[in-house]
């Protein structure tokens, strides 16, 4: 599927909430969307376009905002698609993809604990790799590796 085809297909569904479809090496395209359209887009991409296999969910901290991206694979088309949206740093909420792709549960737990994205309606939003009660989101740029006082594990009383 070409980025233009993907754009035509999605523009009909999302309207102005579809921001752009950019070409991306090795993928069908990079779909940029408004976070309010998340669940609708996920459903469409999985059920209509056939990207049934969710491979990866990741977060990037751009300091003034955070980016969340989803990579999904289609067995019929034999290609990946990249879905990406921005959430403000002071309100990092996004609708969870777990009701659409079961595989998203652990990936979103990881994005929550490492980049601090809050997934709404996630069935089980607990920390996965860091200890329970750990007070940081280590992959935020504000978490510095070189400050010795941070090396001590600080935990809230739980």
């Amino acid at each position, binding site marked *: 599927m070409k980025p233009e085809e993907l754009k035509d297909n999605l523009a009909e569904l999302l309207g102005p909430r579809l921001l752009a479809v950019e070409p991306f090496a*090795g993928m069908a395209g990079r779909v940029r969307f408004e976070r309010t359209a998340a669940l609708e887009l996920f459903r469409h991409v999985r059920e209509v376009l056939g990207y049934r296999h969710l491979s990866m969910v990741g977060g990037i901290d751009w300091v003034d905002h955070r980016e969340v991206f989803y*990579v999904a694979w289609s067995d019929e088309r034999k290609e990946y698609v990249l879905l990406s949206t921005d959430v403000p740093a002071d309100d990092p909420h996004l609708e969870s993809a777990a009701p659409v792709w079961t595989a998203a549960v652990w990936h979103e737990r990881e994005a929550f604990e490492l980049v601090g994205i809050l997934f709404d309606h996630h069935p089980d939003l607990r920390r996965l790799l*860091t200890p329970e009660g750990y007070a940081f989101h280590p992959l935020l740029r504000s978490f510095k*590796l070189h400050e010795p006082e941070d090396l001590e594990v600080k935990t809230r009383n739980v």
Partner: protein
Amino acid sequence: MWVNMGPQHPMTHGLWNLKVRIDGEIIVDADPEMGYLHRGIEKISEDRHYNEVVTLMDRTCYVAGLSWETLYITAAEAALHIEVPERARWIRMLTDELQRIGSHVMWYAAFVQDIGLMTPFLYGMRDRDLILDLFQSFTGARMTYEYNRVGGVRNDLPNGFTDRARKVMDWLMPRFDEYDALCLGSDIFHRRCDDLGRLSATECIDLGITGPMLRSAGLARDLRKDRPYHRYDQVDFDVATATAGDVTARYLVRMEELRQSVRIVRQCLDWLDKHPGSVLAQELPRWLGAPYAPVGAEGYLLKRRYPSGTGFSAVEEPHGEAQAYVVNTGGEHPYRVKFRSPVFANMSGAKSYLVGYHVADIPPIMGSVDICVGEVDR
């Protein structure tokens, strides 16, 4: 009742904890607890030079270091817009396949020990050593190779390597039949493994499960065929599949993959014999080009601007489908590195393939997942 199996338990290869809720002997719920091995590799990568991240990749998965190196490095090269010489691509394919043999043989050794067969364990460890010897001959290390570089690989294969590797392949091929005879010929093996941990292909797709676990459920999905990277479109091999989707089927798939890997290795060796050449791109910026750039040398520690870009790569790693996402904003360090570990996804579905079986079935089922905790926790 919730029972903790781990973090210190013979079934857990690596450090993790499987919490299972049991009703008598039957498992009714399962919740793997990860993170004991979390070293923050993605975070540390943001503070490292592009070539220095390769060092971390060997530690990400300690049984398939070279597969993770090529995974990261192809994404980094895409992000930095760097072309790789043809010979380096073939060497990477060769190392990936040797690594798959090493990893699968290691899995075989650990798995049969899980189900109580001690002799095959020793055979597996013996044969894996031959692969490690090959790695040592061209990387200098048996476990932490640090062989890939942005733009190619560190050094060419030594003289006589291809003949030596061919001898190892000739020796290994009949050993796989021995493995099969030891396991499939054993009644104990079948009683412990048949009809356990069943998953259908649809369940696998929904749970994000890939690799031998997915192929054992009958879906011939292999990135080497579906989305060829390196030069997999130029070699002949078959995708191993089975239909049952149980522990025995996963064993069969991995054994067939070993044979197919030997087939690919032989084709790589033939190609490498005929096509000498450079293994590292010649026109690299100085700070990326020198394999051992002296610290403080011009351009290495200075802030250099480089065209920004985002790189993505997906590799059929021995455990399944691994992905890397590298964001380059023009600095000398990657801005963000994100990895998808196949075992991470395979383990997230633990509840689906454990519930309903007996507690004594846990070692063979979890063994058949081929767990490498290093890459789950990163």
